[in-house]
């Protein structure tokens, strides 16, 4: 029966090629535009580490003095920590895993004299960073836990840098010269590019991951510079790196893994104890002094990973889709009414109302599927355009199966909805009117 309906639908499409292609194009454009915008939004907002996003917490401390605040966040907490705080809270053994973190970078000086030095971004972290964020290793492993207390010059690099410097061979045990200091390679990680770059949302939400990872404990020894934000509120004489380490400047980040609510509660208590201790020596003097733990999802929200431009575009694109659908209803009315005499004959020959109704819904569905397919093709084209427009999102924008199914579902659902009214109208046709004229 369905194949008969489909055959009739195909015939009817062939009979009104211009009207039908107008409808297919309208649905296609509507789906294409809204899917492009929706894909970008969906990919930006996607949980980058779904297995652990509710166990990984970014630590914020309200270290401002009286009268100071951060006007850029809703709760006015500073986004980063001071070095003394990062060092002190690292003593807590409550979290399952923990890491200090700093965005930095080096001049890499290749062994051979013919290749010129080049700049690479790097990150100073603790040994559990890789486990916490599920970073896969290709060769070797992270450094020993003791190095986080008694620093040594060890380094983990990514596979891209390993390809460039060592032709992709196992480089564990070999030397990497960063500026004037030589580091021993202990591990090589596979390609790792979380989008958004949730573990550091203060320095470009969709920036590339770093290619070099060194122990955070080396900071005071090699005066590792900050490549990220440095925010100060206090008038301090900061003339040297050692001054900066002791200052109230906020430039470090801190992540903890708290597997359940009990541990989270225990950790909050630990931090509050730490804060009241610090208050005795004159720090944390603001009435809002306290701690805020935000998990990955909350942290993305705080940092507005999805720009407001995208929300505006989502709104506009759905209005666009609405116009396309209204347009389709209008055209369907025209198409179906044109066929009223034929329907009259079919009704007179014994076709029931529901048969006529279903026949027209099959018509509409066929148009919807064709429009949806056109929409998917246009959506791919649109995403290609988005890639050229926003170079930083390039790795982000692709349609996965969910989105493809969603696109077809929206196209089908919207066109069936659009077809309901015209189909209902036409199945109520009184056959006698047309039979008289014929």
């Amino acid at each position, binding site marked *: 029966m369905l194949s008969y309906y489909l055959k009739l639908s195909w015939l009817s499409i062939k009979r009104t090629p211009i*009207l039908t292609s*107008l409808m297919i*194009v*309208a649905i296609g*454009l509507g789906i294409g*535009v809204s899917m492009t*915008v929706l894909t970008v939004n969906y990919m930006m907002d996607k949980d980058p580490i779904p297995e652990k996003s509710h166990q990984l917490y970014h630590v914020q401390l309200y270290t401002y003095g009286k*009268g*100071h605040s951060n006007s850029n966040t809703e709760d006015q907490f500073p986004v980063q920590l001071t070095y003394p705080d990062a060092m002190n809270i690292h003593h807590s053994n409550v979290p399952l895993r923990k890491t200090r973190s700093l965005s930095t970078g*080096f*001049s890499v*000086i290749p062994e051979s004299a013919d290749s*010129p*030095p*080049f*700049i690479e971004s790097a990150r100073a972290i603790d040994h559990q960073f890789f486990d916490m964020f599920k970073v896969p290793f290709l060769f070797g492993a992270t450094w020993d836990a003791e190095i986080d207390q008694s620093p040594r010059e060890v380094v983990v690099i990514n596979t891209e840098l390993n390809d460039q410097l060592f032709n992709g061979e196992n480089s564990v045990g070999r030397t990497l010269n960063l*500026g*004037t200091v030589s580091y021993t390679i202990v591990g090589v990680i596979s390609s790792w590019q979380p989008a958004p770059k949730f573990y550091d949302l203060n320095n470009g939400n969709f920036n590339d991951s770093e290619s070099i990872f060194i122990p955070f404990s080396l900071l005071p020894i090699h005066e590792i*510079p900050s490549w990220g934000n440095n925010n100060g509120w206090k*008038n*301090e*004489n*900061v*003339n*040297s790196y050692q001054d900066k380490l002791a200052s109230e400047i906020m430039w470090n980040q801190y992540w903890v893994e708290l597997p359940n609510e009990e541990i989270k509660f225990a950790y909050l208590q630990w931090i509050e104890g730490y804060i009241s201790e610090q208050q005795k020596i004159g720090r944390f003097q603001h009435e809002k002094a306290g701690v805020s733990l935000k998990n990955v999802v909350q942290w993305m929200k705080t940092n507005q990973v999805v*720009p*407001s*431009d995208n*929300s*505006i*575009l989502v*709104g*506009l*694109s759905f*209005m*666009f889709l*609405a*116009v*396309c659908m*209204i*347009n389709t*209803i*209008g*055209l369907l*009315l*025209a*198409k179906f*009414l*044109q066929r009223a005499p034929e329907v009259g004959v079919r009704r007179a020959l014994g076709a029931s109302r529901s048969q006529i109704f279903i026949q027209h819904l099959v018509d509409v569905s066929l148009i919807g599927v064709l429009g949806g397919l056109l929409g998917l093709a246009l959506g791919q084209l649109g995403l290609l*355009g*988005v890639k050229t*427009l*926003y*170079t930083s999102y390039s790795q982000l924008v692709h349609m996965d199966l969910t989105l493809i199914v969603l696109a077809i579902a929206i196209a089908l659902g919207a066109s069936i909805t659009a077809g309901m*009214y015209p189909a209902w*109208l036409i199945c109520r046709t009184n056959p006698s009117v047309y039979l008289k004229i014929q």
Partner: protein
Amino acid sequence: MFEIKPILSALLRHKSSTLLIILQIAITFAVVVNGTSIIKQRMDLMSRDTGLVNDKLITLNINSFGKNSDQESNIRADLELLRSLPGVVDAAPMNQIPLSGSGDSSGVAVSQEAHDNQEVTGAGMYRGDSHMLNTLGVKLVAGRLFSEDEVTYTSERPDVKALIITQSLADNLFPNGDALGKLLYFGGGIQVPIVGIVEHMSGSWVSWSSFDNNVLMPMVQLQNFRRYLIRAEDKQAANHLLGEVEKLLIERNRERVVTGVRSMDELIERAYSDDSAMMTILWIVVILLVLITALGIVGIVSFNVNQRIKQIGTRRALGATKADILRYFVTENLLITSLGLFVGIMMTVGFNVFLADQFEMPEFNWALIPIGTLIMFVIGIVSVWLPAQRASKVSPAIATQSI
């Protein structure tokens, strides 16, 4: 003479299809007007004057890693080299470059007391040598430039003896227009006299509220990372330098890496890349939407014409001219468009109130409503023209057929 009455009664017989077109025109209008309003805002943002000699400037970063390199003599030698190059007007070491998206800012106040009470204005802090103003190409409107001996080379906290600020910052802090010679307070007891005012200079972050508030200081920071700004004679010379300058600097001293060699035009393009992307997307949405609505009107009117062929024929047989028929369909369309636009204007206002509420958008450009209305009328008439013409060609003989 415009046959409004018969048109209305015809429209009332096709309530649903008339209503659909009205709705479609209304939503199209709302999207088009709000879309172009956002486009206009971004265009205004991007066309702001930078106060600099944009097309003649190039910038680069130096990352030195040599151990005991004497940084001051290194910087001096670099700049001597840069200034001696053919096609170069001037060059300066700087801690940050306008429109680059990175740099230093600080809160400044008109007195120590004001600073202690947090009554501060945010401003970008530009540090460089006495060539900095000439290299940027900013225009001094009051006071004097920095002298050679005011410039300090240091890695410590700045000991600055003189400041030049932008007119915008001067107006902000000293509304009476007497900024010149006054002291600016940075907190911690640091106070520096204002010796000059420049007309205009853009800051580093295009979306920062203090974009135009900037402070220039005669001071060169000695650190491993620094930036140079070079002013060329013209665009061609600047383009030539883009390809040459890295090699020349590395040849002079190999213990460093040169990165980020870019023209100011490229920095500006990068700074506004999200805005221009938004503009492109909005243009596409607006144009496609107008196209779909126009095609929709063509489709519906064609259908109406087909359905009414007999009536048209009858009217023609009863003496209506071709122009009468054409006028009938155009008037019908104008009527529908007007109703659609009426609903559309309501929606636009509502939509805009919502957007402004949610996203802190700058004020809506009301002039777009009459412009948009006009455009929609034109589109309506253009779309109706072809099918209406076809209707006007219906032969009066049709009326006599098949009865």
